[in-house]
């Protein structure tokens, strides 16, 4: 079994992390400025999280949707939930993951690349998020 036992657990942990990012003063504006819809499709367990930076809520930099969505995605990232978890902890070499197929990215490369500056702050935020949820056991 992977790190997450169910999609519910994934949403409770990784989903709420992304919701937290939607109000984070460093990550939030960078993702908002991408003006794209990015869909994360996870396996083991199967889950979908959509980040909508085209139609932000009033009090958030972007929207985060759990589960299937009709929203047309500009970029679709596909990976196992374990890889995603390790990635947000800064334990996955993005270049290697993309070239080895551990992560697949479909969409305009220009838009994918623009997201990179937004990712780095997550490496310190995600472990703190896990701790705040009482799940420090998931920090690798």
């Amino acid at each position, binding site marked *: 079994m992977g790190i997450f036992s169910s999609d519910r657990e994934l949403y409770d942990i990784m989903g709420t992390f992304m919701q937290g990012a939607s109000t984070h003063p460093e990550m939030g504006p960078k993702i908002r400025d991408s003006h794209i819809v990015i869909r994360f499709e996870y396996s083991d367990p199967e889950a979908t999280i959509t980040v909508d930076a085209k139609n932000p809520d009033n009090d958030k930099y972007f929207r985060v949707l759990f589960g299937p969505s009709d929203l047309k995605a500009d970029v679709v990232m596909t990976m196992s939930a374990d890889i995603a978890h390790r990635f947000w902890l800064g334990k996955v*070499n993005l270049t290697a993951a993309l070239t080895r197929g551990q992560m697949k990215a479909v969409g305009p490369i220009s838009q994918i690349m*623009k997201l990179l500056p937004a990712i780095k702050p997550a490496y310190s935020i995600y472990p703190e998020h896990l701790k705040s949820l009482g799940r420090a056991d998931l920090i690798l």
Partner: protein
Amino acid sequence: MIDIFLRKVEHNTLGYAGKVLSVDLSSKTLSHLFLPEEWYEEFLGGTGLAVCQLLKEHPADLAEINPVDGPLMFFTGPLAGTGIPGTDRLVAAGISPYTSIWGESSCGGRFASTLKSCGFDGIVIRGRSTESLYLEISKDGISLLPAAHLVDRDCYERVDALSSGGKFSTLVTGPAASNGVLYSSICHDKAHFCGRTGLGFLMASKGLLGIAARGWMEPVHREPERLAQIRARIREKLSHSLLAQALGEFGTNSSMDIGLMLGDVPIRNWRMGEWAGASNINGPAFSESVLVKRGTCRSCPVACKRVVKLPGAEHTQPGPEYETCAAFGTMCLVDDVEWLCTVNDICNRYGMDTISAGCTIALAIDLFERGVIKAEHTGGLALAFGHKDSILRLVHQIGRGEGLGRLLGRGSRTLAEEYGVPDEAVCVKRLEVPMHDPRAFHGMGLAYATSVRGACHVSGVTLAVEQGGSYYPGLSLREVYEGPTADGKPEMVAITQDFGMVLGSAAIFCELAAMPLDETDIIDALSAATGRNLDVEDVLSIGRRIWLAKRMVGYIRGMRRQDDRLPVPCLTPLDDGPNAGNVPDIDGMLSEFYSIRGLLPDGRPSNDTLESSGLMGLFARYI
């Protein structure tokens, strides 16, 4: 006058033109040079052929010869002219006037295929002319011509003067070389540079300011139909590669953001691990502000070159690559896209390596801020990180050989020695470490320490393999390497050096265009071009032979194990950033590497090692 239509059939049918143009500047004579057939078989092309030629020309005095008295050599590889993306590669080589050991630098563009279509695999230039000359090669003849009209011009103007509106492919040196800058580059058609190890200085010191070539023959390859299939396969791979797309979209600076995430980017003269300003000079920052066009080498769909236009400027200009953005941007703490375009343009026009120039200036600023260099040494110029005007003034001083620039034009190591702080120079074998921090990727640390030309990120495929951009399943490499550890690195470095010696240094492939490819693509292309049935072990053996031969040149020129080192700043832990507190175990990796490579304790390849690589004959007098 030499017979320009002469072909040597044996080599011509093996993917080579079969002859080399020999130029003696002292006597102003031109002749054909026919290299031994076994050199082509055992050393393939590029620097492999160049190192053999160097040893042939200086069998007895290699240890003591002044670099400027040695030959300057240009060589192509067997794939130049095939139209396969990334294969129009030219290497320049000789004894480096900057490092005093083996010097080499390569570039793309179109000169290699042009030279092939002039009927030459390379050019060997000897002697020295008291008057400035340029070399012109076309079907109308080959001539050494007066170059007085080039003397007071910058690189771009020299290209314009020699190219006849683009009909000729050009190589020129710039005013920096004439003004004593030891890391002067060779500029090809304004957009491509043999930047490293000061071969532009070597060229200018011979009185040769430029070469202009216009081809007229179609290169002949053994299996053209198979080559066409391989060419289509490689183009297809590139079209689906995320890395190739990123290179096309944002140039080599596409690596800035990922590099920052991984701790690969050096900041503030190697002393900081993070800097918010870096994201202001990433690939998208250039593409969204000054980029007007993507440039490319002949036949390459990747198109990683940048053509930029600054606000208010009349003309476009070549844009900076990642190494320049890091050397003058993150290293000097300048996060201004337009300024980086300007400083890149100025360095290009003077004809000097932006890595060495930027790193030397970053060191000078650091020493100034710490009170080692004082205002009286700078002519009153206050140096500070992020201070664009003073940095630009230093660039001009270097290019013109004025003021403190005269010292900075001799590089970081000389600067540090002059001020009594030699350990502050971030160099290996006197060559500045390029813009990839070995504290993030320890294998690169070992690759730098043992590189045959001094610190180098392109003489092997170590960087691409360790960072994950390339994967060669047939080379007995792991699929993934963790960056900041020594685990498995000595073996990985040896293999990736051997493969890189063929891939890049033998002038076969651009390391960027080759990143999405695997060893099968490379070997298939080589086999089809040469008619040889090469396999992985053949290619690695050739690479090992080339690496060892260049290593021996360094040994003969005085390099020993103590020179296989990383500079102190790269072994000093950072306080912040992705790799805070982490430094490579260079001594541990080096011991294992020596064992794998078959090197003696003083750094020389053992007799058994030389024997098994077929090099005993070449080096018999030195062992």
